[in-house]
């Protein structure tokens, strides 16, 4: 009633004002954007957006209709919810009922109806934000976490199950804007947040949503500061950083040190052809003589053999008597160890030995030999020893003084066996004393080995022969046989052990033409002519390298310088044309039957390996 009066008055006023001012007025536009929300499924509110009012005061009215009736109701409350709103209280709210709502804008000139909106309260639930948000920093073994708790909006009745709310919260650091960390909390009303930054200030907010509705607004922000707990972690990181920096430095340094080799490895230098001593410029000049003279290596090939002689440290010159059979017969009754050395008359040797002063040696030996021809075997033995002495003394290298004193009494070649014995003993004693000395000269730089072949028997006086032979073995002046480039030296002569006879005598024979294979000298045992002497055993027996055949008449011991573990031939059943006498030696050529044992020379360079008895 009042309203209609108002409207009429308004119209009149408009008329007059329009007449007076000639303004244009129009009916209002219809309102738009009618939106309704229910916070707790018990009440709801609708808002609208007014349109143009047409220059005149406009009123708005909301009318609604429920689905089951045609009765049109007007909004009961325009004020509670603010401007342009309509609040429906509990009494006016029915759920599971469609509301048809429309807003009417009215002014003096007309009215406008908004578009009707159908709503059902249960579908427009948007709760209020959660309340009483509290954030507490809890300590967890030094790693703190946030305990966030809240309460549902006081209007929402979750206790009865009328509304079921699910919550969501978000966290961020104060300095990081818009970098929220979302957490879904479900239906629970508390939440733990871990992985906090030490000393950080955090902002926490929470919101809720009904099971079939809209999200609420974010609650008011809660601030919290996390205390500093970071020290342990920081120090650890500092330690780690320092350590890795150290390792990096070390690696860099290593890389720098090995940069050259690495460069070679990765980028190998391209080899350019170069000849040492070759002058490219000379080539350009065109004088070929000069050029190629540079290519000539000085002192190659070796001019004289005398240099090799100089290189020889020591050698043993052994004289081989003319009638080997005679010597053998004479020495048949050898009691002690038969010390004998053979020398091949042949000039050519395998290059191993010190071929030196062969003629000289031969002369001397010849003299002594003639003297001894009539003497017994012992005398001949002495001869041998004496010759040895001579030979030794004749060493032009002057380094060897093997047994200088040993043989001094020896030249008194009497047929006195006692003398001989004593001489032998003396020799033995001397040899014992000079044993170590004997080894030395030949070790380092001797090129030519000298070999002394021995034949031993293990008859009476085992000790003597053994030691004597032991020492005699030690007369070998050169240990490093194979280190020496074998040199063709006519002066050196070798005897080779042919075989061992029944009486355990080593049969020697002069070596023939051994200088053929220079380099192969150390490999002599491979041939048929040489066998290496391993050593002497306790029974005064020569231990030769075994070939694996035959009986252990003369057990062999590896010589220390024998690299190949040379052949060792031991056989006592060798048939030979030679007389089976002790210390037999023949000048037979090498073409002995291969079954001969102890072919080749006996290498006595096994000082260290000899068993001491």
């Amino acid at each position, binding site marked *: 009633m009042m309203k209609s009066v108002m409207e009429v008055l308004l119209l009149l006023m408009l008329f007059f004002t329009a007449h007076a001012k000639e303004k244009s007025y129009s009916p209002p536009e219809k309102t738009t954007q009618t939106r309704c929300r229910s916070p707790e*499924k*018990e009440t709801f509110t609708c808002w609208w957006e007014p349109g143009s009012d047409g220059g005149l005061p406009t009123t708005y009215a909301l009318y609604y209709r429920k*689905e*089951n009736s045609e009765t049109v109701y007007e909004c009961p409350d325009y004020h509670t919810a603010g401007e342009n709103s309509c609040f429906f209280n*509990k009494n006016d*709210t*029915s*759920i*599971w*009922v*469609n509301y048809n709502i429309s807003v009417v804008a009215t002014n003096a000139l007309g009215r406008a109806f908004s578009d009707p909106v159908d709503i*059902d309260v*249960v*579908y427009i639930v948007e709760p209020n934000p959660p309340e009483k948000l509290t954030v507490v920093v809890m300590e967890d073994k030094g790693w703190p976490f946030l305990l966030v708790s809240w309460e549902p909006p006081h209007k929402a*009745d*979750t*206790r*009865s*199950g*009328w509304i*079921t709310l699910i919550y969501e919260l978000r966290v961020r650091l104060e300095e990081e804007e818009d970098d929220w960390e979302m957490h879904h909390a479900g*239906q*629970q*009303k508390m939440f733990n947040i871990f992985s906090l930054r030490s000393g950080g200030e955090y902002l926490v907010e929470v919101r809720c949503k009904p*099971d*079939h509705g809209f999200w609420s607004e974010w609650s008011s922000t809660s601030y919290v500061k996390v205390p500093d707990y970071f020290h342990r972690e920081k120090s650890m990181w500092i330690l780690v950083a320092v350590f890795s920096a150290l390792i990096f430095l070390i690696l860099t340094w290593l890389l720098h040190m090995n940069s050259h080799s690495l460069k070679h490895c990765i980028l190998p230098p391209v080899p350019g052809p170069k000849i040492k001593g070759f002058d490219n410029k000379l080539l350009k000049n065109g004088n070929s003589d000069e050029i190629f003279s540079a290519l000539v290596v000085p002192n190659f090939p070796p001019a004289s053999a005398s240099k090799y002689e100089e290189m020889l440290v020591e050698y043993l010159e052994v004289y081989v008597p003319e009638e080997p059979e005679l010597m053998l017969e004479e020495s048949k009754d050898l009691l002690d160890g038969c010390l004998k050395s053979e020398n091949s008359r042949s000039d050519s040797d395998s290059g191993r030995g010190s071929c030196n002063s062969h003629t000289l040696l031969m002369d001397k030996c010849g003299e002594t030999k003639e003297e001894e021809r009539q003497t017994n075997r012992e005398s001949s033995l002495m001869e041998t020893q004496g010759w040895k002495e001579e030979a030794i003394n004749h060493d032009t290298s002057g380094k060897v003084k093997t047994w200088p004193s040993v043989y001094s009494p020896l030249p008194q070649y009497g047929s006195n066996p006692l003398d001989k014995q004593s001489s032998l003993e003396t020799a033995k004693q001397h040899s014992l004393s000079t044993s170590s000395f004997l080894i030395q000269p030949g070790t380092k730089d001797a090129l030519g080995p000298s070999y002394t072949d021995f034949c031993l028997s293990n008859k009476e006086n085992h000790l003597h022969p053994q030691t004597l032979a032991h020492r005699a073995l030690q007369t070998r002046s050169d240990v490093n046989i194979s280190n020496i480039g074998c040199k063709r030296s006519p002066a050196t002569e070798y005897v080779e052990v042919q075989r061992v006879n029944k009486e355990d005598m080593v049969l020697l024979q002069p070596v023939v033409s051994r200088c053929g294979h220079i380099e192969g000298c150390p490999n002599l045992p491979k041939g048929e002519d040489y066998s290496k002497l391993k050593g002497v055993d306790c029974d005064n027996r020569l231990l030769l390298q075994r070939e694996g055949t035959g009986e252990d008449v003369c057990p062999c011991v590896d010589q220390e310088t024998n690299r190949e573990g040379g052949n060792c031939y031991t056989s006592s059943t060798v048939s030979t044309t030679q007389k089976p006498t002790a210390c037999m030696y023949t000048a037979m050529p090498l073409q002995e039957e291969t079954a001969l044992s102890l072919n080749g020379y006996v290498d006595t360079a096994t000082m260290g390996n000899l068993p001491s008895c």
Partner: protein
Amino acid sequence: MALKKTDGSKLLMAVVCLVAVCSSVPISDLLDRASQGSDKLHALSTIISQDLNSHFPPIGQEIMPRPSMCHTSSLQTPSDKQQTLQVSESDLLSLARSLLQAWSDPLLVLSASANTLHHPDQTSISNQIQELQLHSKSLGDGLDILSGKMGPAAQTISLLPFSGGNDIGQDRISQLINFNFLLSCFRRDSHKIDSFLKVLRCRATKAQPQMC
């Protein structure tokens, strides 16, 4: 997916039966499961409605039948919170079961008509209707078990016959309109079911307020 759900629900039923025989599963748990089922049901229906309304002819809104014409409108259900909270548990369950039962046939109609629906999202709608059917079925079975534990009053089901028949429309528009209408009815009823069950759940778990 649908098969899995059937198997899942069957398995659920088997387990529930077994458990019920061997040892009684607390009603609160059963109600919790039922609530979750009804929640899912309603969510599905909402999704389908939204899909449908995305490409709905504007005129359809105008001439759509009123919700009071839903075949379940004859059932007296509480219309606000006060009334709802005053209803007994058994009655609430009965109401829920009645509503659910009332939709077993119409859902078939919906499912059938979804195949011939003239809508851009027809395929997804059709699939979702299928899923809806399965969920409805499993929920109904669960509620049957629940009713067995809640007394004879819970066993009563009000029959709400569906008189729509199999035909939901001749032309495209009417088809769509009727489909939409049916779906809206279902959506509301599923919300009712969900609400009732959740109130029941909260009542059954007085000792565990966090469930509510």
